[in-house]
């Protein structure tokens, strides 16, 4: 009866969170979707993992996941880091859901630092773990003031900061968490993804949800929504470019990590998205070092 749920046989409520907490997070998610890029406050809960481990993303995933979902978790593009493995295990244990490392099989992808190279679909939701949701925080520490600036859509400070970059470095130096304007209105932080991934957010067929646990904010970008990286007419936004293709699968136009091969300074550049790289190699694509370094992702990329 009523709203009290029987715990799972293993002693957890489904997906760990109690139903009251899920409802609160679900309400915040719906508001986030209705007001794209706006940071909805929510009462973040303690999770059985430290804050640095993406508790905001974990809470969002816990509130949306159902028994038929298939979950993929990536950290720096890899499914194999301690963080990704532990979050995947957490949901396998508390929700009994299927997990995968293959982007195409997932219905929910929780991520820190990357958006998969493979284009997401309308059937998928991507959940970002966000450490610092407020793009204006470093410019204006007072929450009451940043609220006002968002209310007025006054993003002059942000433009000044980016323009100072240009005067100092000749270009905009920000390469991660590069601010975007969503649906012609709110400026938001895309979480610490490389700016290389910003164009993937624009008009993505997938729903994009963002959870910041310590800062207690949830925000969203609905599918097929305009996402514009802030820039200037004389300094248009540009993504990172890589001189060479992936050393293992020869992919171009993907984000590469530098991997140290030996202690004599040998190094190579490989796909940061390990699933994408493996899929390409399985399809027969070969990079110039593909014979020499099988399973290199177990060592880990640049971090």
């Amino acid at each position, binding site marked *: 009866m009523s709203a009290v749920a029987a715990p799972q046989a293993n002693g957890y409520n489904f997906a760990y969170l109690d139903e009251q907490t899920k409802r609160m997070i679900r309400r915040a998610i719906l508001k986030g*979707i209705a007001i794209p890029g706006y940071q909805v406050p929510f009462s973040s809960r303690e999770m059985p993992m430290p804050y640095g481990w993406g508790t905001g993303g974990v809470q969002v995933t816990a509130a949306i996941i159902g028994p038929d979902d298939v979950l993929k978790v990536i950290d720096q593009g890899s499914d194999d880091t301690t963080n990704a493995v532990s979050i995947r295990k957490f949901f396998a244990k508390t929700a009994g859901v299927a997990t995968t490392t293959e982007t195409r099989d997932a219905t929910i992808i929780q991520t820190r630092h990357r958006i998969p190279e493979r284009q997401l679909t309308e059937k998928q939701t991507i959940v970002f773990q966000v450490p610092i949701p407020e793009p204006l925080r470093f410019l204006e520490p007072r929450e009451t003031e940043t609220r006002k600036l968002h209310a007025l859509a006054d993003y002059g400070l942000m433009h000044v900061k980016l323009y100072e970059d240009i005067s100092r470095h000749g270009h905009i130096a920000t390469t991660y968490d590069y601010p975007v304007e969503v649906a012609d209105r709110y400026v938001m932080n895309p979480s610490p993804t490389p700016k290389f991934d910003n164009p993937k957010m624009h008009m993505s067929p997938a729903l994009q949800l963002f959870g910041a646990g310590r800062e207690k904010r949830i925000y969203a970008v*609905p599918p097929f929504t305009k996402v514009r990286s802030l820039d200037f007419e004389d300094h248009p936004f540009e993504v990172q470019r890589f001189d060479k293709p992936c050393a293992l699968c020869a992919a171009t136009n993907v984000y590469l990590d530098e991997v140290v091969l030996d202690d004599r300074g040998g190094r190579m550049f490989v796909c940061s998205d390990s699933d994408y790289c493996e899929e390409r190699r399985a399809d027969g694509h070969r990079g110039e070092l593909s014979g020499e370094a099988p399973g290199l992702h177990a060592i880990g990329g640049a971090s």
Partner: protein
Amino acid sequence: MSALAITAGFADPVIEAQAHFHALMNALARPGSVQPFPAALDAPAPLTRELAAVALTLADHEATLWLDETLAASKAVVDYLRFHTGARLVANPSDAAFALVADVAAMPTLASFAQGTDEYPDRSTTIVIAVETLAAGGDLELIGPGIEDRTRFDLSPRPAGLAVQLAANRAKFPRGVDLVFVGARQVAALPRTTLVSEV
């Protein structure tokens, strides 16, 4: 209060709340798309099973409910919602986190509900309206976030002057209300971002 006198809610509250939330999330993320909404529960008339399913999925003691006159006049409905959600029922639509509307014809204007503030536009009412039919196609053309190019949407019956009211609602963005429509085991939504025109 005797629980025996009250109609049962979800048979499996955890799993069914997730399924209904999933449908609501998709409906708001893809305006005008009609999503299946199982609503496999009994609700005391004139509360429809779909309105009941939305209330049981989203309302609780932290989220107030406003009921239209038709619903508020039924003791069985009031008891049912109080028992299953624990939500505080408010008399003024501008105090509501969620509003349940069973009688479209008698619905207050969208501007009567909570609009949120410029700093906190999320402090606004989500209005849940029971209708008879929801369909893709039709004479309402929708543009905005969640819609790839443009889409068509139809619902019946409609609140009076819907397109004009929605244009005024859109003009307040980021303030404004979000509309959820429930029909026969279906749900669709028009969040405040959607530009709606009659064609």
